[in-house]
């Protein structure tokens, strides 16, 4: 049976997590079909057709799909489902919103945030904030799965030559309506796919002080993240949050500044290749996962670090 992957896209480009999800799909065996749904998505479909490992791109054009609302998108996927053995989406806020709805409509379980494929019906997923890894087998006929991007190397974005097929869009429910979006704008790389991430916690004391991190991020080409405490205190927007209930990152280098290292934060970054912690409390739990720990006042250390990188 073939595998259906829900592509996530924005402004004519595929979101990076789509590539990791394709990589997971390839492990399942069978043709991989990438579903590009939206309004005005011809250009994205062309991009999607080049992803290595994708056999076919399904294009669903409809004004009702202009925003990835769960109700119409789930109805569309359910209409396609009988032809597939697996339905996958990235474990982004879009995938997490839509796929459980698909699963329930199909009367199957969803396997959330897999980090490995053991067999086409068996997967590994973290539970308890990543303090345990469960190996689970699905007994359902259709496996509905969200994929944690950090578990899979991304598929190669170009070089493939998938066919492109426009599909008929069924009547879609109009129970919900998109009103507005307030999206954070940044010139820096996207948090979940950046090679380097520098995050600040409550120790930063204010949103203004985040410029100390930003100037270092700009030198390193890094993304800026935060702990929940920093977000709750209003230092930075919600989309900066790294952790169990925020974003999961695994960059080559993660620098945690003024972050104590609660299990909920560690859950979002402990698979980073190299971890640096800067904290004035030498007992802070973050040092237990740090490859390089610096016990220092961040207000002294950050300007020095910026200097040191010049």
């Amino acid at each position, binding site marked *: 049976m073939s595998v259906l992957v829900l592509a996530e896209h924005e402004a004519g480009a595929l979101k990076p997590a789509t590539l990791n999800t394709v990589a997971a799909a390839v492990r399942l065996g069978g043709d991989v079909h990438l579903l590009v749904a939206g309004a005005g998505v011809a250009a994205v479909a062309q991009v999607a057709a080049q992803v290595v490992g994708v056999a076919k791109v399904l294009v669903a054009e409809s004004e009702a799909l202009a925003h990835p*609302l*769960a*109700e119409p998108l789930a109805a569309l996927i359910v209409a396609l489902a009988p032809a597939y053995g697996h339905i996958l989406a990235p474990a982004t806020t879009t995938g*997490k*919103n*839509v796929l*459980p*709805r698909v*699963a*329930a409509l199909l*009367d199957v*379980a*969803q*396997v*959330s*945030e897999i980090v490995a494929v053991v067999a086409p019906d068996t997967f590994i997923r*973290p*539970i*308890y904030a990543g*303090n*345990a*890894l*469960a*190996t*689970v*087998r699905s*007994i*359902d006929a259709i496996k509905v799965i969200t994929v944690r991007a950090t578990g899979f190397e991304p598929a190669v974005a170009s070089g493939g030559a998938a066919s492109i097929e426009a599909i008929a869009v069924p009547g879609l429910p109009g*129970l*919900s*309506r998109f009103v*507005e*979006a*307030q*999206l*954070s704008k940044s010139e820096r790389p996207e948090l*979940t796919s950046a090679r*380097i991430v520098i995050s600040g916690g409550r120790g930063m004391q204010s949103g203004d002080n985040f410029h100390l991190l930003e100037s270092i991020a700009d030198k390193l080409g890094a993304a800026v993240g935060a702990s929940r405490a920093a*977000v*709750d205190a209003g230092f930075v927007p*919600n*989309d900066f949050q790294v952790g*169990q209930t925020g*974003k999961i990152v695994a960059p*080559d*280098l993660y620098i945690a500044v003024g972050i104590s290292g609660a*299990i*909920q934060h560690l859950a979002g970054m*402990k698979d980073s290749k*190299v*971890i640096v912690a800067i904290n004035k409390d030498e007992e802070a739990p973050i040092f237990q996962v740090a*490859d*390089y*720990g*610096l*016990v*220092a006042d961040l207000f002294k250390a950050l300007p020095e*670090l910026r200097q*040191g*990188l010049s």
Partner: protein
Amino acid sequence: MKILVAVKRVVDYNVKVRVKSDKSGVETANIKFSMNPFDEIAVEEAVRLKEAGTATEIVAVSVGPQAATETLRTALAMGADRGILVQTEAEIQPLAVAKILKCLAEKEQPGLVLLGKQAIDDDSNQTGQMLAALLGRPQGTFASKLAVADGSVAVTREVDGGLETVALELPAVVTADLRLNEPRYASLPNIMKAKKKPIETVTPEALGVDVAPRLITLSVEEPAKRQAGIKVADVATLVEKLKSEAKVI
């Protein structure tokens, strides 16, 4: 408008769980359990809607063992009016919880069902979405703000790119994110009052819901531990190590 709010009894968020030596699960004997933190936020939101005159009655539901009565008592002490315990000792997965909640929603006819966005034990993040699907109703997940007005609810959602607002026709299902509100602590008088509030007990069988798991857990293991790192004396040493040892900058 009636509000149904789903509250799960989970291992307290402060407990660092240990995997059982036979790999069948995590150790749950003699550890602290609490209401799932996101569900406290859902209950708080329901209580605020009642205080604002938007809601008239709050019914809290928990699916789980007898001990989940404590979780319901917490919800009642925070301001819920009555509780329903769907009692079972079996392992209950999100699809089954959603089916149980669907039965209860059909009976209670709430205008709004509030859940947490995620249970911090299974980290599934599914139940609200599944319930909305089964009821054929709209969903507002990861809510950081709600505004109810004339048969609809505007939900501001925490999404990867920032915030998004959707308008949902009522009845609707909404799941709470961290920034929706700060849950109150129940006062002692309210804890006392909660003891007198009614809790009805039913079973999944009586509701006619098949709760058999669809995911079979083959093993539960501890993740690989990170190698212990080193402390560096100063920033200069740190930069040097990152350049020549770790080779990441």
